[in-house]
């Protein structure tokens, strides 16, 4: 009898250890990124471009603008696509087509990001004979579209059917009901979905590596090779120059900050949304 109880206590203890082990890496990563990244962050970090090899100083401004350009275009493409797919699944989708589309959206979430890069290289970079920010944005769209669709469909399903029925009972046509009642009600949930997708886009390295290449200088032409913060971190981390490695940590603190703010913001928004609708 006591042996059984002891086994149970031991097991519960092991579960707590598992919980602790899972959280430790997060603490360590944030700690080291702050420790090594903060010294790299100064005004020049945000205003200067890439320094020549071995020269101290310099910054990542070209990479930050590049990330903004690439992720901005990817967001403009993937938000309408993702939201419309979600509207279909939640408001119209019935039968085999809906089951199929939902399944495709779910498994596309598991596309390895490097594969999205190779796919868009073969499709866009080869056809346009050039690496470009646009190709990078399309590669990110492959990853962001299913994310937005999944999260938006979940939030559209939280909209109470009573609202839909009330609108239809008042004689509002279905399309107007969707655009004027369902989507505004789910508004902050859709914003959450977009924030999660943008956070993912900010952090992706592999797809951009194969499509947007890199650029030491500021570029605003979507059809030219363009730099991005994760690309810079990847290149600088593997270099032999301590100055470049410091810049890599500076990039990491910027990237991690942006991604964590977006993720935490998305979480707060979705909690509020669920309290309001649930």
């Amino acid at each position, binding site marked *: 009898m006591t042996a*059984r109880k002891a*086994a*149970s206590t031991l*097991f519960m203890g092991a579960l*707590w250890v*598992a*919980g602790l082990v*899972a959280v430790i890496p*997060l603490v*360590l*990563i944030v700690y*080291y*990124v702050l420790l*090594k990244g903060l010294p790299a962050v100064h005004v020049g970090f945000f205003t200067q471009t890439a320094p020549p090899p071995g020269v101290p100083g310099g910054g990542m401004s070209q990479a930050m603008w590049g990330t903004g350009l690439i992720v901005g275009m990817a967001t403009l493409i993937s938000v309408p*696509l993702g939201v*419309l*797919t979600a509207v*279909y699944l939640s*408001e*119209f989708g019935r039968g085999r*087509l809906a089951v199929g*589309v939902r*399944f495709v959206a*779910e*498994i*596309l979430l*598991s*596309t*390895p*990001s490097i*594969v999205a890069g*190779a*796919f868009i290289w*073969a*499709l866009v970079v080869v056809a346009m004979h050039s690496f470009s920010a646009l190709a990078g944005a399309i590669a990110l769209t*492959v990853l962001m*579209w299913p994310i937005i*669709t999944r999260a938006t469909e979940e939030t559209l399903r939280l909209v109470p059917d009573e609202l839909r029925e009330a609108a239809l009972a*008042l*004689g509002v*046509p*279905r*399309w*107007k009901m*969707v655009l004027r009642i369902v989507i505004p009600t789910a508004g902050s949930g859709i914003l959450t979905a977009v924030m999660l997708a943008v956070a993912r886009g900010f*952090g*992706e*390295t*592999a797809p951009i*590596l*194969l499509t947007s290449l890199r650029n030491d200088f500021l570029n605003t032409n979507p059809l030219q090779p363009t730099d991005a913060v*994760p690309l810079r*971190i*990847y290149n600088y*981390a*593997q270099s032999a120059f301590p100055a470049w490695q410091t810049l*890599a940590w500076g990039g990491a603190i910027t*990237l991690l900050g942006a991604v*964590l703010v977006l*993720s935490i913001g998305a979480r707060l928004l979705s909690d509020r949304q669920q309290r309001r609708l649930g």
Partner: protein
Amino acid sequence: MEERSTTRSVSDAGVPVRRRLRIGDLTLRGGTVAVSLGLVVLLAGLLVVLATGAAPALSQLGLSFFTSRQWDPVTNHFGALPYIYGTLVTSTVALVLALPVSIGLALLLNEVRSKWVRNPLTVLVDLLAAIPSVVYGLWGLFVLAPALNTYLAPFLARTLGKLPVLGALFVPTPAVGNMLNAGVILAVMIVPIITAVTREVIATVPADLREASLALGATRFESIRMAVLPYARSGIVGATMLGLGRALGETIAVSMVIGNGLGISASLLAPGYTIPAVIANEFREATSTGLQHSALLALALVLVVIALVLAGASRLLVRRSERGFR
């Protein structure tokens, strides 16, 4: 049903009610259907484009693409065995390390009633999933790998390395990057996804089963072992497959800590190379003549087919588990 109710509404212009309403409905419905089909076309296009690109390499090299160890752009011969090996080894290490932690954590989150423990823990694990892989790689390269190489690797070589069969896994090498580092980083990265899916499945275990086992005098441990885990088993297998898919496809973090060495070594403390890492490293340098691009696209095709099959199978298993079949 709804169709009929909308057509009863009042007309405010001269346009016939039925027609005007139907045009709006048809447009929105047609538009969303078209975009949704676009998503299906995207998946099909991805497979077709990669298969077309991979065809020259696969047809010229045949099975030797999967069985040869020679990967040489100069002689135009490409054998992917070292990459396949490295991918399988690192993913296996990652699963072995991540599974107990993830399942333990998911059970903990299900057992603990206090929201003061549950909510922060859930948030922290979700944030772990949000960290970009290049940040994992940077941290792995400068913090984790030196620590593992200084403390863990010599310890493993001294202890487990002395065992008869298992010892081959822990033969020390002077390399900085190795497969153990990659496996550990991958484990950290897949814990959130396995935990999330396992939790989702465990949450669907009927309360009557738990209560019945407790009423019969089972301890918490026995109740989990006899009522919760058997019921959630196929869902946990599904969660594992999803985690495996993530681990197989992870690129940047792995390529930064694995050493990118082209050998097949039994020891986890030796450098290795993975399929995503070689695509990332060689793609931009590959020349347009020769088979290198085609061989790399073939690797991408192999990767995505495995990842999608795992994801699909995982989804079906989880859904079956949630519906309560076994």
